[in-house]
């Protein structure tokens, strides 16, 4: 710690910080633009000027930029010094020279850092009386609106997009006062993290285009903490609602998980909540006659019919969902009983998940958080396509490759926050990142070593690395020289690193790569290293479901086909995405009654005899377990209209209705509020025991009050419903959380999950985050960053995985079809959001050019492929990174039912596809 003197008061601060961060950390207001807590200082905007004095006798002092000055011991500065204040006001005046002052029509208005800083410096009167420069704006695609005239040239956008997020299709153009931040020509921003520009930009140059379509000011948003449901990483978000419409998603800082940034799927995937395809009423098929469509009925009647069916059922199959909360799944499990509860994932995925869970539970190596990944100094990725399956983790790796080169800057005593200086020293030097898989993405451009091979070969490389590192780890026979050399290079890099990280997962559907990753990590552990493991999983609650336990979907199918049960409850799941169409069809046909609880119409809900409208994540509370094993709570943001309630409440009502005539009720039927759900979840499996500690329970109060979800300045409350009633109805009650659907309540420091949105007087933009942290960039005050449910207890590897696959070779006339996931398109819910849907590519099949030649397929032609009983129209992409003997199929909505990996005779499948088309 260093002690610094600011305006004659002494403060203890971290000497590794710069003065700006230190001042903000101790709660002082100092304006800034170009500095960003995650991106450091570059000294461009000159806004954070303070006066620095040599010692207590120095009366003159000199202006310094706080962001470029280390907070070293004894530093003496003044923020209030008149010259410093005048300078800061002048800088704002200069920034405002060309600013259009269009706040009333600007989407940033009310949460604009430029507004806040202008008010903070006290600049009021305009003295510039010459024409302003103007720019033409660009169409940057469905996510981002562009209004260059508002630009104050802080360079944050280009630093984020290019330096931090690795994007190459965005830049700064021109020089002097004619600068332009955008693309070389109009077009969609291709980077998967472009949405962060909205928050990185201190004013309204880059704004959220999806918000624009249903615009609401920040102060009119009812907000709460959410957990992104669109992949397995569990990034924290703040969801904002007004008039029953979910308006937008913003990043929500969590020091262990997503930090300051989100991916575009997470930010723009929310609009399915507002979809016309939402199920809003309880539906019932008349007389349960399958020839008739389900129709809306009164809730009591639907429940009564459903309960009657349940009571008369020969057996009930409950199918849980990896995209539903723990509590909801536990509710179903309680209703149908553990033996009739199935996980809603196929046998293959079930096995992969079990292996991963086993590795994390019984092995000595802990799972990595995203922040751990960011700080890793050597990374091996086995078989995962991170940019498409876990984008935020890919963003972390882009930072991890700078860890080793940054040690050079450390040697030169350049502090890490001095971003421009560090980058000059680091230049293009990259720390070790090895990516092995069967598909090239732009992340490979940042890798120090790449390997393309079928999953079995990728696994062999992994086993070879483990065999090289670990004394007694099984080694791989008959390796080619090339692979042996690469394995040696990888092994060297990992063993020389301080914080190595191994990433694998379910993405390629390969069991062997997962085991290989465990061997590598365990071998490193055996060598006394402190490695971490990260397994990318398919869904936002895959690991939670795996922990809960239950049979696979195939077992559920068997249960019906073998006549053990005749009634099905499908919870928040489209089974057609999870099993082959014919099998699902047969399953539903065989079931006497099909009940479904979900939020969006899909092929499965079309089969439901009883269909209950489920709340989405923004309309309910729940706990999700991310791929790291971190349990995190999402909170209800608003009360939906129609019959929509939380799935667990439907299940409770079903349970109650079913057991009406029985003697007593137990389990889910007894649940009154969310706390009850949490309590039963905690009791479900030992790992969940402390699940109640994830976030404050419903009874939590501060000064006897709840925490309001609506901001101080929420407008129009008394007249919002005036088109329905002249009376002002009381706000809805919330029995489930310490939050209120209201403006009234406790305003002050609260445990982090209860922060409705980041705001502080004078800090209306997301930069208000500073005010919620003890130390800038550090954890939130009273941070509850989720609870890790799995920590290693073993001190050494329990065993080695020895099932090393043989070198990949495709049998004659057989191709291994592999899944190619898409950041926009492969995840079910986000794909139903219009902005994301616009970014979904046409379905395609990727092949090595030599395979294309073998099959007489040219690049970019369209083929018809008969696969697992369905014919798909696919574009052909010849891609030299695809291994021979394989073909990749893009998992976009039109192709979502395909089960991969699978062996197929492509020449036959294409022929059959053409034939079927003709018929």
């Amino acid at each position, binding site marked *: 710690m260093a002690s610094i003197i600011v305006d004659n008061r002494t403060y203890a601060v971290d000497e590794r910080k710069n003065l700006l961060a230190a001042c903000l950390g101790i709660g002082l207001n100092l304006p800034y633009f170009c500095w960003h807590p995650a991106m450091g200082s570059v000294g461009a*905007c000159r806004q954070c000027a303070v006066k620095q004095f040599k010692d207590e006798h120095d009366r003159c002092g000199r202006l*310094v930029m706080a962001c470029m000055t280390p907070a070293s011991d004894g530093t003496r500065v003044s923020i209030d010094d008149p010259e410093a204040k005048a*300078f800061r006001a002048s800088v704002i005046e200069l920034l405002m020279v060309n600013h259009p002052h269009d706040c009333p029509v600007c989407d940033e208005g009310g949460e604009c850092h430029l507004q806040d800083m202008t008010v903070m410096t006290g600049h009021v009167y305009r003295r510039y009386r010459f024409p302003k420069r103007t720019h033409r704006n660009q169409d940057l695609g469905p996510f981002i609106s562009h209004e260059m005239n508002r630009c104050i040239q802080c360079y944050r956008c280009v630093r984020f997009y290019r330096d931090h997020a690795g994007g190459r299709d965005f830049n700064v153009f021109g*020089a*002097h006062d004619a600068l332009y931040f955008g693309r070389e020509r109009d077009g969609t921003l291709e980077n998967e993290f472009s949405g962060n520009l909205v928050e990185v930009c201190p004013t309204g140059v880059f704004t959220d285009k999806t918000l624009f379509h249903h615009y609401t000011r920040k102060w009119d948003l009812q907000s709460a903490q959410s957990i992104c449901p669109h992949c397995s990483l569990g990034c924290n978000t703040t969801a904002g609602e007004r008039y029953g419409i979910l308006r937008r998603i913003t990043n929500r800082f969590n020091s262990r998980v997503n930090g300051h940034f989100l991916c575009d799927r997470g930010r723009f995937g929310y609009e399915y909540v507002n979809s016309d395809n939402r199920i809003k009423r309880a539906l019932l098929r008349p007389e349960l006659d399958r020839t008739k469509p389900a129709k809306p009925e009164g809730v009591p009647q639907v429940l009564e019919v459903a309960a009657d069916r349940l009571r008369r059922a020969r057996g009930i199959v409950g199918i849980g969902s990896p995209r539903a909360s723990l509590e909801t799944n536990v509710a179903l499990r309680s209703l149908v009983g553990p033996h009739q509860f199935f996980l809603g994932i196929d046998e293959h995925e079930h096995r992969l998940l079990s292996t991963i869970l086993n590795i994390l539970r019984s092995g000595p190596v802990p799972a990595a958080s995203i922040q751990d990944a960011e700080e890793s100094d050597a990374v091996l990725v086995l078989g995962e396509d991170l940019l498409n399956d876990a984008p935020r983790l890919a963003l972390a790796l882009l930072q991890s490759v700078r860890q080793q080169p940054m040690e050079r800057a450390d040697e030169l005593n350049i502090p890490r926050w001095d971003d421009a200086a560090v980058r*000059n020293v680091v230049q293009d030097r990259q720390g070790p990142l090895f990516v092995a898989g069967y598909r090239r993405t732009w992340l490979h451009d940042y890798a120090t070593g790449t390997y393309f091979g079928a999953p079995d070969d990728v696994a062999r490389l992994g086993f070879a690395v483990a065999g090289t590192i670990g004394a007694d780890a099984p080694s791989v026979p008959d390796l080619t020289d090339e692979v042996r050399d690469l394995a040696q290079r990888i092994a060297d890099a990992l063993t020389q690193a301080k914080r190595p990280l191994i990433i694998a997962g379910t993405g390629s559907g390969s069991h062997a790569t997962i085991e290989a990753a465990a061997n590598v990590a365990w071998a490193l552990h055996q060598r006394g290293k402190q490695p971490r493991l990260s397994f990318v999983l398919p869904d936002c609650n895959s690991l939670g479901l795996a922990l809960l336990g239950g049979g696979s979907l195939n077992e559920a199918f068997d249960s019906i086909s073998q006549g053990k049960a005749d009634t099905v409850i499908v919870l928040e799941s489209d089974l057609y995405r999870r099993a082959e169409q014919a099998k699902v069809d047969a399953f539903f046909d065989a079931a006497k009654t099909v009940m479904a609880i979900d939020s969006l119409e899909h092929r499965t809900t079309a089969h439901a005899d009883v269909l209950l409208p489920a709340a989405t994540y923004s309309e309910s509370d729940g706990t999700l377990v991310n791929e790291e094993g971190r349990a995190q709570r999402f909170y209800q943001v608003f009360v939906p209209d129609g019959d929509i309630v939380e799935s667990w409440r439907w299940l409770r009502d079903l349970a109650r209705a079913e057991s009406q005539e029985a003697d007593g009720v137990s389990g889910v039927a007894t649940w009154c509020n969310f706390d009850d759900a949490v309590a039963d979840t905690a009791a479900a499996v030992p790992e969940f025991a402390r699940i109640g500690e994830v976030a404050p329970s419903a009874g939590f109060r501060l000064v006897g009050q709840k925490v309001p979800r609506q901001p101080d300045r929420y407008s129009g409350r008394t007249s919002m419903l005036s088109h329905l009633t002249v009376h002002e109805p009381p706000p809805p009650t919330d029995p489930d959380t310490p939050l209120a659907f209201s403006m009234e309540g406790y305003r002050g420091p609260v445990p982090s999950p209860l922060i409705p949105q980041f705001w502080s007087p004078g800090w209306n933009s997301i930069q208000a985050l500073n005010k919620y942290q003890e130390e800038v960039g550090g954890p939130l005050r009273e941070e509850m960053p989720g609870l890790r449910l799995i920590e290693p207890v073993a001190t050494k590897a329990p065993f080695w995985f020895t099932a090393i696959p043989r070198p990949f070779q495709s049998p004659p006339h057989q191709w291994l079809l592999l899944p190619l996931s898409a950041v926009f398109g492969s995840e079910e819910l986000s794909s139903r959001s219009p902005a994301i849907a616009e970014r979904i590519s046409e379905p395609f099949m990727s092949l090595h050019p030599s395979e294309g030649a073998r099959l007489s397929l040219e690049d970019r032609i369209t083929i018809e492929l008969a696969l697992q009983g369905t014919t798909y129209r696919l574009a052909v992409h010849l891609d030299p990174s695809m291994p021979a003997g394989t073909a990749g199929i893009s998992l976009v909505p039109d192709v979502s039912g395909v089960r991969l990996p699978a062996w197929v005779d492509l020449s036959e499948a294409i022929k059959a596809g053409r034939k079927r088309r003709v018929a």
Partner: protein
Amino acid sequence: MERPLTRYIHPDGSPRLLREYVKDGGYRSLHGLAAGMGPKDLQRLVGESGLRGRGGGGFPTGNKWSFVPMGPDASKPKYIVANADEMEPGTFKDRILMEGDPHGLVEGMLMAGYALDAEVGYIFLRGEYHRSAQRLTQAIAEAYAEGYLGKPLPGTTFRFDLHLHASAGRYICGEETALLNALEGKRAIPRAKPPYPQTAGLWGQPTIVQNVETLYNLPHIVNHGSAWYHNLSRSNDGGTKIYGISGRVTHPGWWELPLGTTARELLEQHAGGMFHGVSFRGLLPGGASTAFLTEEHLDLPMDFSSIPPQVGRLGTGTMIVLDDQTCPVGFVLNLEKFFARESCGWCTPCREGLPWVARILESFEEGRATDDDLALLDMHAELLGPGHTFCALAPGAMAPLQSALKYFRDDFVRHISMGRCPWSNKPAQLRVLV
């Protein structure tokens, strides 16, 4: 009087090529190295000579070199960069040297490279200097052919490679760290300091950036020793200097003279005084980014230490003369337009402040200025001053403005009161008072 820097330059401006250069004593400094002068010896010699950087900053060269990591553990490669991006308005001294004596630069680069054990050199040449480019290219080719470049120097293990890089044009490239970015093929934005180029410069490696004229001095220091060099000057700083004068003087031109020659001697003896019928009002001693000197300063020795800091600085030593037939406001407007256009656009005060200043000055010239505008000029002169901006461009731009506001304030006021430029015959602007 000795004129080492220009001794190889033909009076007609034609280049001195290798054979002639060697015959006249060129590349003789290599013998000194072969005779056992080590890098450290050379560094010491230059330090003792009192050589100061001729690019305008006047930083002692020996001192600058002392920050370069030496020895077997030093990060390799190290680079020497000749800053030949001569673009300071009013400055043409480097062009004279490079066009007339291209081998002098090659030899100077060799000396610097040897002293710092840097194996690669770049000449960062202004794109518009086509003739210099042509002659340097030829000189470099000759030096390679002769084995001065690309092979170990006789009697040493030191081998030096030299490349010419033509710039695509930007004044800011003259700032040494912006120059490094330009050389790396990036936008020429100045870099944060520290780290200084000596430890982390070109591609993150130890680098010395040196003005062309400075480099020309090195072979002579090696050949004749530091005492000889020091005695060339009339001041504490060693050597001769190429001075120049442009504007309405009888004989505009350039001269190599002892450092410390007075402005009066330059103006009256060498440039032959003012044009017939015009009189002297002031001069910028070394390019557009230096402050005005007036009659009272003419007897100051023109060196790096004699001009009091509150008055100004020498800069490049190529002077621009303001006469009484030229409007000082228009003069400053021309400079500020230049600086506004050449700002790199990185930091706020420079990017936004300079165009504002230029526009205000324009309104003076158009007769639309008010007293408020004069106050705004005063404000900017402070606001864009040293330490307030990322690099020295804006403070440099404010030097002539601030001094003009001091020495020629009456002329600014007359623009306001007359509603037109007193030097222009355009009618006064009608003023509408609101």
